[in-house]
């Protein structure tokens, strides 16, 4: 299975925000609410990861509640690809 690196997922996250007219800060600690990264954006990012890897992701919904920063998103998706 093809797996995306954290940096590659970060690039995809930047594309999602760019399409919304927003910018992805370089700081992984940036708060998602402050940069306007919402559930629609998160879902789009997941689809982009699926498209890039050709694999469907299996989400653990309870885990999503712990995601509040850019770094949380990247860590979660990196981890999810390995499940």
């Amino acid at each position, binding site marked *: 299975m093809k797996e995306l690196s954290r940096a590659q997922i970060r690039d995809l996250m930047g594309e*999602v925000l*760019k*399409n*919304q*007219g927003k910018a992805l800060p370089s700081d992984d600690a940036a708060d998602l609410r402050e940069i306007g990264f919402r*559930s*629609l954006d*998160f*879902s*789009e990012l*997941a*689809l*982009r990861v699926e*498209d890039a890897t050709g694999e*469907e*992701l299996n*989400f653990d*919904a309870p885990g*999503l509640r712990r995601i509040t920063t850019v770094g949380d998103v990247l860590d979660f998706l990196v981890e999810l690809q390995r499940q």
Partner: protein
Amino acid sequence: MSVETVPQAPVHPAGADNRVVVDGTPLTWRDLPELILPEPAAVLVHSARYALAAARHHAAHGTELLLSTASRVDAAMRDDLRDTGFVVTELGAQTTGEAVTTGTRTAERGRLWLLTSGSTGRPKRVGHTLESLTTVRGQQPARTWLCPYAPGTYAWWQVVTLSLTQPGQHLVVVEPDQLDDWPALAAEHGVDAASGTPTFWRRALHRDPDGLARVPLRQLTLGGEPVDQTILDRLREVFPAARISWIYASSEVGAAIVVHDGQAGFPADWLDREVAGRPTIGVRDGELVITSPYHGAGLDGPVRTGDRAQLVGDRVLITGRLDADEINVGGSKVSAGLVRDVLTAHPQVAWARVTGRRAPLLGHMVVAEVVPTGGVADPRPVPAEAMVDEATLVRWCADQLPEYAVPRRIRVLTEIPVKETLKSDV
């Protein structure tokens, strides 16, 4: 049975002397092969010539007939047809068919069977007669009609019955392998009236707009799929003086809605209006419901069409199939048809398809496929700054749609996909 031919039948329908162009060759209905068919016959054709011959045979003899292209009828459906008493016969290929000449039941004289498009599963049989399929009556201006539809479909019968029953209504048949270049064929044979799906028209505009403009069309008809304002407007630009109509018709309810004013949808004051001899149109729980005098056998009374209808201003828009049109994005309902209309209204989009895709958190997200304008016949390179991209289209949609309805993944295709039915989605 093997296919046999006999001398010309003595009885001919009123349109027998109309011109019929098949494989590019001008004939008349009289010149088509005269067939001997078993009864009841399920005739599966490999060419338009034999489809027309079977239609004329029915008009002359009243033979109970189900007509379809061979490709639409799989082995299981052939078995079903045999089980219900049909003799399955293939025409127009190097096949010898069945070694029986009569079915296992008494034929129903005058009965014609259509197969539904199968958009909600396997095609179903719907019973009609030549009379119930002949919805254009009265004196019509002489026309040469293009017939691009697959033989045996409701739309095919609409054009065929017109030519069979009315002198002066000629036909130019488009075989599947001629579909990409039909404007040249149509221009050569003086086609001045054509009926097709919106996908059929979009492909023609996309592939070769100059070639399309050379066809001397005075009547353009759209049907079989949702008809949006953009495609009507684009055809109007090419054919400013022609009558452009759209029609809502199906095997089940017949031709039920015909609109000539160049606008998408139909006037809301047509709803629930009862006029003798005409269909009554209603909307119940967002679904188009039709009571039609042109219905198929056993389908009298209100028929739930499965199509979604929405009141927008003073028009009722038919946006697509109910089971496919509604996308639930995190509890918010999105009409795929309305999103598609927004995309196709972009000046650089020739065609779009909108669907729901499974997504985390929200259940589904709206995604799309588009074909940019710039016909495939146009060899000029498109400047990079004029290329439409995903971000541009996302912004275009975001300006006009709620956030949850904006397609987030938009795939760019190079060619408009089309099925045998001339539709994109079925």
